[in-house]
């Protein structure tokens, strides 16, 4: 699985992208965040700012309870500020 981070999430984590092998028991985005938090508390930022952080699954806006699999590309990013 590819996970991408943008803007200040990327800067906080110190990486724009990582590749992980998704354990079988992780089936949605919320579980993925918990899993990441267990590895490194830097990911607490995503939980802490969950009210505003957006998630995309395969480049489409998704909810945090969306089902995911090891073939998916997940992205976490702040509200957009283009234009």
């Amino acid at each position, binding site marked *: 699985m590819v996970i991408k981070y943008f803007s200040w999430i990327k800067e906080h984590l110190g990486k724009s992208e990582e590749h992980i092998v998704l354990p079988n028991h992780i089936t949605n985005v919320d579980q993925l965040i918990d899993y990441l938090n267990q590895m490194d508390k830097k990911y607490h930022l995503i939980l802490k700012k969950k009210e505003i952080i957006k998630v*995309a699954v395969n480049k489409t806006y998704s909810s945090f309870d969306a089902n995911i699999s090891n073939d998916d590309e997940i*992205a976490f990013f702040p*509200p*957009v*500020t*283009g*234009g």
Partner: protein
Amino acid sequence: MNKSSSIIKIKIQNEDFDVSEEIKVLYQNNTGAVVNFVGIVRDYDEKNKQIINSMTLEHYPGMTETEIEKIIIESFDRWELTGVTVIHRIGNLKPFDQIVFVGVSSKHRQNAFDGCNFIMDWLKTKAPFWKFEEYNNQKNWVSFNESDNQALEKWKN
């Protein structure tokens, strides 16, 4: 008259764009009106009371184009349009540089106005771009403006 097919053009690029050239792409059969929006880099951050040295835009390649395309298709569903062009720059920009171009053509002017306004409002809330401003020794990620969410209200029907 043969009705030519609609123009849709989406570009994400570092380079500047030339508005005259871009709107001419939209002059075609059945068009009488072209409305376009150009966003430019401000020279002053009112919230933080700072003169802006430069601004940097990043985006999510692949998702950006898809989201913009969805917005454009929705605009064609809502109004009778003949063409839409969206160009959004990324990278480092200076005050008064052009950031974004949204050009909409139609037979009738109100459709062109509404289509362009709609695309800008949705682009502001959905297209995955993020920007930070640089002051003298600072870097400040611009935060989302709640008024951009409110702007969407006028398109609910």
